């Protein structure tokens, strides 16, 4: 009896360290933050906390005051997630389906950047993309593609590019796992059932993606500002045309019906997991906008960091943190509703 009772206790014992950890370092700090977010005062003046004061103004005021930072976070985080997906899906697909005996090496290369500090890698990008860096040296001085006063650092694109680079492995690994799991016989079955190349659909989808990507690139770089208002529409049109042509060709020849109808739908649970894993850290990031961006491209994370560490304004910082958390939770909830994963995997009887 004593043995039986102790056996029943084993799962709880195994969970205990984790639960204790979460209690100490997640639940208690969050309660503390919640209290701060409704308080008044700064570190210097001291805080007046609930129940003496319930300062809802911290929330309502922050939303309007920092709406620009919020929209930066959403747009940059969202764009980085989409870019990660566009880069990561073909990569994960290639490793899973064509990797052969190089699979493990390729996966290792995907996570290899993690062996260097996050900060060091971001600073490296600052140097690579900087005004004296190799990218501009080629594009500006050798190819004369951009005007002399052109710079990449400070543009929204640099921030989005940095975020995309940092979180790409978070996208690739879950995608790889779900694509790898797709039964190859299902693809053969689809081909057997007349699923051939996806010419027209692939061309349209590819053209749309290509045009979008090149327009986003131009706008993100703030290219229009350098060449003048008059020339901007023509440049956008040219970018759209080039993007559509390249994307259309790629789509028409590389995308098959069996991919659209079988492989991709079956990998959607992985797409769901990967995009959440990418979007959450990307939207809360403050290192990339600080090192690669300008004062105009600051995200919510920068404001929170500044309020906490520089201005010691804990109430506003805590309120912003909670607002960000609530926003992310809401977004994930809507996303899960939209992409309900159970429906996709076939469910169980």
């Amino acid at each position: 009896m004593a043995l039986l009772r102790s056996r029943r206790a084993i799962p709880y014992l195994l969970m205990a360290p984790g639960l204790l950890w979460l209690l100490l370092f997640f639940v208690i700090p969050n309660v503390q933050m919640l209290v701060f977010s409704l308080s008044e005062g700064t570190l210097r003046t001291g805080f007046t906390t609930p129940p003496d004061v319930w300062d809802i103004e911290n929330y309502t005021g922050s939303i309007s005051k920092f709406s620009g930072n919020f929209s930066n976070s959403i747009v940059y985080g969202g764009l980085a997630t989409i870019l990660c997906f566009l880069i990561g899906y073909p990569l994960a697909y290639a490793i899973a389906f064509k990797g052969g005996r190089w699979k493990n090496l390729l996966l290792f290369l995907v996570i290899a950047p993690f062996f260097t500090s996050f900060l060091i890698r971001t600073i490296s990008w600052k140097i690579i993309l900087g005004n004296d860096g190799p990218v501009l040296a080629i594009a500006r001085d050798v190819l004369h593609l951009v005007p002399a006063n052109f710079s990449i650092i400070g543009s929204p694109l640099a921030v989005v590019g940095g975020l995309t680079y940092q979180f790409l492995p978070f996208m690739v690994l879950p995608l790889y796992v779900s694509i790898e799991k797709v039964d190859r016989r299902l693809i053969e079955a689809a081909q057997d059932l007349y699923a051939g190349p996806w010419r027209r659909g692939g061309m349209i989808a590819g053209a749309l993606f290509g045009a979008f990507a090149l327009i986003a690139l131009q706008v993100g770089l703030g290219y229009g500002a350098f060449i003048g208002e008059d020339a901007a529409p023509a440049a956008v049109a040219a970018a759209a045309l080039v993007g559509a042509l390249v994307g259309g060709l790629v789509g028409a020849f590389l995308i098959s019906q069996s991919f659209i109808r079988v492989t991709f739908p079956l990998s959607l649970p992985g797409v769901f997991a990967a995009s959440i894993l990418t979007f959450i850290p990307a939207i809360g990031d403050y290192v990339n906008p600080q090192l690669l961006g300008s004062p105009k491209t600051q995200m919510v994370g920068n404001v929170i960091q500044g309020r906490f560490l520089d201005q010691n304004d804990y109430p506003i910082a805590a309120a912003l943190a909670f607002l960000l958390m609530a926003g992310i939770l809401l977004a994930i909830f809507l996303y899960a509703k939209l992409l309900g994963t159970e429906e996709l995997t076939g469910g169980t009887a």
Partner: protein
Amino acid sequence: MPEVEVRLTQVYKAFGGDATGRRVAKYTDPNEAGLIVAVDHIDLEVQDGEFFSLLGPSGCGKTTTLRMIGGFEQPTSGKIELAGQDVTWLPPYKRNVNTVFQNYALFPHLTIFDNVAFGLRRRQVPEAEVRQRVSEMLTLVELPGYERRKPGQISGGQAQRVALARALVNKPAVLLLDEPLGALDLKLRKQMQLELKRIQQEVGITFIYVTHDQEEAMTMSDRIAVMNRGHYEQLGDPETLYERPATAYVAGFLGVSNLLPATLGTRDGDYVAATLADGATVRVPSSVVEGKSDIRIGVRPEKIRLSKEGAVIPDRMNRLEGRVVDASYLGASTSYVIESKSGERLTVFEQNVERTSHGSLHRPGEDVLLAWSPDHTFAVGTDRAAPTQASTTA
């Protein structure tokens, strides 16, 4: 005269040396080092509307042959024709052929309806016609009302029917079936065998069926090709293959057979005399020994009659003396192992109609006479070894 629906001409398929783990025969090409041969120069003609089986143990090349007809593999050399058109290099989606896969390969994210409609929709069939043809097909496989379920919500037998419907709804010229009943339990398998045959007769489509189960092949097929090491040893209807196997391999793969080394003697009308190792002379139909010199004669266990020593046996029968080594009671019949004077062991099945209440009709140690009709005697060459019995029941 039925038309030839599928024609294979000198089809040869070899995989490179790194083919380990692939589903291929494991023997190497004697002429080209490093190549693993799966299919070795096969010529095959399948008639329109025929139920044709490729029968053989795993690794004999039957699945590779099927996959080449389906377009999932390309032959190293040779030609594959469908209804007169050369399709050797066409991808699967351009062939008027559909496949029922070994583990069904139903799309788990689609409903039963969408699974069955998949092929029609890829071929831009109008949606109203799709609905009509899918529901007709689900009625044919006796699954109406299952349209909205997912593959995860139906049983193995039902999944099998859906896989069949998904392929047949496209009205292919040829339906390829790759061990489709392998995952079902015995009872369901027997039931599905009869059902497959019924459906095949109803739709009149050519079926090419791959199996390692000789009984399954015999039950359903019009013709069977018995495959071994990349080619077929004999091709014929089930009765011919059983009654007149041409090689020791075929004789051993389809049922139990007794093979005895023999020396051919003089011809006497429709029969040829053959002398066995113990000196006994038996008669063999001359048609079965034509073109063969070095032979073993064969007889199926159920064709042999056992009688007590000294019993009178008609002259026209073949006879052999022997001693009972073992007798096993199998319910409907008794299986005896008999040793001939020259030491060969024969298996004999006797129906238990004359069985007495106190045990077997013949006891171990008893001397007996074996008798069988010369017409039930077949002959095989001695060039190939018979496969072990174990490989037929895998």
